[in-house]
């Protein structure tokens, strides 16, 4: 067997548990005594936890790991790390330390693991952080990721559910990497599409987050396993509504073609089941619906800020090479939480 390649069964954020079943479990967990310093915990379904140490400093904690979605171990390491680091940026924080999380079969070539961890370490360094340790488990399948600790000012972190009516929504990466990786798994993706998807997934959200610093960001999250609509739902949080303009959303065109071939994941279908309760498509083609529900690995930031500031932020994001666009707006509560029109 060719040991320089990974065997993929559908990894990345497509391997995530569905949002629906997860909520049912989390709602029933016991809560300890309240701690006023826990500014963001899992009650809010946010990207990472924020814990205030003092008036000027808060810790941001997150962790993410998953099975490979591509067969190149080095690129997989980069993607898994970029994905894990992303939550710190979605909270408005700065990366400080990271711990490796490794599951690896004892019988497999250790050079493969070396390549995965090299890819991961390079991304942590690019993020300005350091690898401070890690933990490894012998397992039947490869899984890799990071536990990341960052810092943020307690009064300056970005929650994901504090968007205001009238805000514009900006997305910083193209959607569709989940569908492209799935098509690739059955030999149907073009090398160009795959290369573009890998390039997108290995891009740190650090640069987009740096652009945000000059603006008054109302809410921010990153798009991962629950897909664009699933993470947008966490942003509207049953308190607001929003209107998405499908044709404005940055996507990989190839993902539409593969969606029309039904090269779709189980996770995508779980996202569709979950979205039925809060999203309404109005004249959106089937393939575009699938892209909006597609589980993303290391997806972009979804940012809410005032209408007046939005065009300037988009311009700055584009200047650093990101395919950012204004994709919709937050509204007062309407009859449906998320309305998607084909304009």
């Amino acid at each position, binding site marked *: *067997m*060719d040991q320089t*390649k990974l065997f993929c*069964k*559908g990894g990345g954020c497509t391997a995530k548990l569905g949002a629906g079943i997860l909520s049912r479990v989390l709602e029933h967990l016991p809560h300890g005594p309240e701690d006023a310093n826990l500014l963001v915990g899992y009650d809010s379904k946010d990207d990472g936890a924020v814990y205030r140490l003092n008036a000027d400093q808060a810790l941001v904690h997150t962790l993410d790991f998953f099975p490979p979605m591509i*067969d190149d171990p080095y690129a997989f390491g980069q993607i898994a790390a970029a994905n894990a680091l992303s939550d710190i940026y979605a909270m408005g924080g700065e990366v400080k330390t990271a711990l490796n999380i490794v599951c690896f079969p004892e019988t497999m070539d250790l050079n493969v693991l070396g390549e995965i961890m090299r890819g991961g370490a390079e991304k942590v360094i690019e993020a300005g952080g350091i690898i401070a340790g890690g933990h490894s488990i012998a397992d039947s399948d490869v899984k890799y990721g990071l536990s990341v600790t960052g810092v943020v000012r307690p009064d300056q972190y970005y929650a994901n559910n504090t968007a205001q009516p009238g805000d514009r929504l900006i997305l910083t990466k193209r959607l569709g990497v989940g569908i492209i990786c*799935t098509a690739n*798994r*059955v*030999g*149907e993706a073009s090398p160009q599409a795959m290369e573009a998807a890998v390039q997108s997934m290995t891009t740190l959200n650090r640069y987009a987050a740096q652009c945000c610093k000059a603006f008054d960001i109302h809410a921010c999250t990153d798009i991962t396993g629950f897909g664009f609509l699933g993470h947008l739902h966490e942003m509207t949080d049953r308190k607001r509504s929003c209107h998405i303009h499908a044709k404005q959303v940055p996507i990989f065109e190839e993902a539409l073609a593969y969606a*029309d*071939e*039904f*090269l*779709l*994941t*189980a996770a995508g*279908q*779980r996202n*569709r*089941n979950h979205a039925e309760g809060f999203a309404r498509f109005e004249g959106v083609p*089937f393939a575009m619906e699938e892209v909006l529900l597609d589980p993303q690995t290391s997806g972009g930031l979804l940012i809410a800020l005032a209408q007046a500031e939005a065009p300037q932020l988009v311009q700055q994001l584009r200047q650093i090479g990101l395919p950012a666009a204004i994709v919709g707006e937050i509204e007062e509560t309407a009859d449906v939480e998320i309305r998607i029109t084909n304009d």
Partner: protein
Amino acid sequence: MIQVNAMGDTCPVPVVKTKNAIRDLNGAGVVETLVDNAIAVQNLTKMANQKGYGVKSERLAENRFKVIMTIGEGAAPPEPTQDECCLISPPGTQKNTVIVIDDDRMGDGSDDLGKTLMKGFIYALGQLDTLPKMLLFYNGGVVLACEGSPCLDDLNSLQAQGVNILVCGTCLNFYDLADKLQVGEVTNMYVIAETMTQADLIVKP
């Protein structure tokens, strides 16, 4: 009626196998797909609804579901890709193509070149617009389906796209490779003879 066994397959493989079966129908007919999870049922149902096929599903046991698709006369065939649209072939002529591989080298001459050519040939098969129905390995060809073969990724990919891969069991035993087989199903001479006599086209590289 064509039956598709997609038990143990993760999405999108059940859909890919079912699409191949619908293509093999060459018109109206019924395809029954067995899957082991409800999400795969939903993904198959979604495809049927988009394509306008009749569809119903039933739960046979806890982790066993049957999805029955009825393809009408007027239904669009599954995803004719752009390339396939350009093929000028009247309906009903899709060939039962069998690729016979009886050596790990392609052509006479240099052994090294022959091995490189064979690897390239098997890769190229997976890129064809019309995939072969079956790959048949016997004698010196069986090593290509075994541990250490440079073609395993390409063969796995062909298999995932619905191409049947059969490997001669007598040959595996002769070369002491029975426990090294990595891809395909072990077969016997009866099946090999039947497969070759019923093929529309036999290709031997």
